[in-house]
């Protein structure tokens, strides 16, 4: 088993998850930051729920939900003809659900601490709500995005409970590096585990440090 195969798979998974989470989490965060509904705390709590369950347990429920008999899984099978579970797509979906709060919370915070004034200025300068959102709210909330990206990226790299459950540890398809390391530890293959851990940590460190350097450049005002 190559040491890089699982890493590459992990990177793909973390990347896909992060991209989707930013795409999905941003509107959710924005809505939460702007809404005045009484239900806001409830929605916030719901968004935070995925991390409350132990990953394997969450994985178990997702296995049922995404499985061929599950609500989402059966619909997916009808749609595409193939099952969600034990596939990379399934992994991505599961990871997204699990890491959702890590993306939403920091982005929401950043949106909430954005002075309303800036949006109002943008509107009066001719920017539509959407335009103002992208040209003012997003760049001024960069810090929140970086946090959200870092947390969901790193967390997805490290997650293995959900991934193991939904993915089925299939080499080359759903055996990500976290599972591979886990397997090595379990089978008392400590040297290999150490090597892989080092690789994972080194890689993640490089990515995150780069991220933070960029963030710093950008937010230098």
């Amino acid at each position, binding site marked *: 088993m190559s040491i890089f195969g699982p890493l590459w798979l992990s990177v793909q998974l973390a990347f896909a998850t992060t991209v989707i989470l930013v795409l999905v989490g941003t509107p959710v965060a924005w809505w939460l930051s702007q809404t005045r509904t009484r239900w806001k705390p409830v929605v916030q709590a719901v968004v935070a729920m995925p991390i409350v369950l132990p990953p394997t347990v969450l994985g178990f429920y997702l296995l049922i939900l995404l499985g061929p008999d599950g609500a989402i899984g059966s619909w997916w099978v009808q749609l595409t003809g193939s099952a969600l579970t034990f596939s990379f797509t399934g992994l991505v979906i599961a990871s997204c659900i699990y890491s959702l709060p890590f993306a939403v919370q920091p982005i929401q915070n950043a949106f909430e601490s954005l*002075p309303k*004034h*800036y949006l*109002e*200025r*943008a*509107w*009066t*300068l*001719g*920017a*539509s*709500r959407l*335009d*103002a959102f992208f*040209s*003012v709210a997003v*760049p*001024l909330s*960069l810090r929140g995005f970086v946090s959200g990206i870092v947390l969901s990226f790193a967390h997805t790299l490290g997650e293995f409970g959900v991934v193991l459950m939904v993915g089925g540890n299939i080499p080359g398809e759903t055996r990500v590096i976290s599972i591979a390391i886990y397997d090595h530890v379990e089978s008392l293959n400590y040297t290999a585990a150490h090597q892989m851990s080092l690789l994972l940590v080194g890689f993640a460190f490089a990515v995150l440090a780069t991220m933070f350097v960029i963030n710093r450049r950008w937010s230098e*005002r």
Partner: protein
Amino acid sequence: MIRLRHKLTKGDFTLDVDIEVPDVGITGVFGESGSGKTSLLRCIAGLEREQGLPVHKRNVGYVFQDPGLFPHLSVRGNIEYGERRATTHRVDGKLVVDMLGIGGMLDRKPASLSGGEAQRVAIAAALMRSPDLVLMDEPLASLDRKRRDELLPYFDRLHEELSVPVIYVSHDIEEISRLCDHLVLLDAGKVVASGRLVDVLSRVDMPVLSGRNAGVVIWASPVDHEDGLTKFDFGDGDIWAPGSFPMSGVPLRLRVAASDVSISRDQPTSTTILNILRASVEEVHAVDAATALVRMGVGNQSLLARVTNRSVQRLELKAGDRVFAQVKSVTVRH
């Protein structure tokens, strides 16, 4: 005319406005701190309650009381923000930048600007949007007088060259007198007076105006130049003012502050006061224990003089008296 009809309650404060203001020229909104000036502008811009057209479609240029530039954009980025989103482009960017003296800081970030510099950039940004209506909330409060004097003419041009109506909030009556054609007086959220500047200003009974703010505005055309001075003909007489103004036949506005006008029974001679006009007293209105406002007619024009009650007694001033109005200084708006 533009109909301004806005009702808004915020805590104890209620804004209740229903007036019409001209859709050309500059309308001044004058009132004390907390009288609701900013609230009114926000209503007009559509920022207070979301009804009617969305804000960005109203095409108003709003210069906020607090500049609050976008911190992530350079000064250039801030200025161009509105320009890029403008539907029409009637404003010459270079001109605006030069007028406001911000050419040297285009590549800086807003955080490094002084208070006045930031406000100038904010003004430029609002103008570059080529708006149909400009709302200005005390745009000059943080600027020194020199810069203020430099900018005021530009605001004029705004509606003259671009024929963009402006609603101009200020607590400086001199600024307003110099700029505006129409004046709205706000007090505690209510309009206490609204009308032509000339009319509102010459009322002696407006508490808010009867103090140091009193004064009138006269329309007059430049007819002669001499010694760096310009002679203005206002139909019923002449007034000299410093500066060279083109004799284009277009009448300009002269602000004569009540505190710059004194009254003499005899024709004064050998004085440095340039302008001495024959006038008849129309009304004497005691403002407080010491001072009074005297309204005089010079032909069809009104003049206000701020004098002491003692002088009123000594000179026995009363309506109908023929006197000489001595005008020490005049502010001209080009």
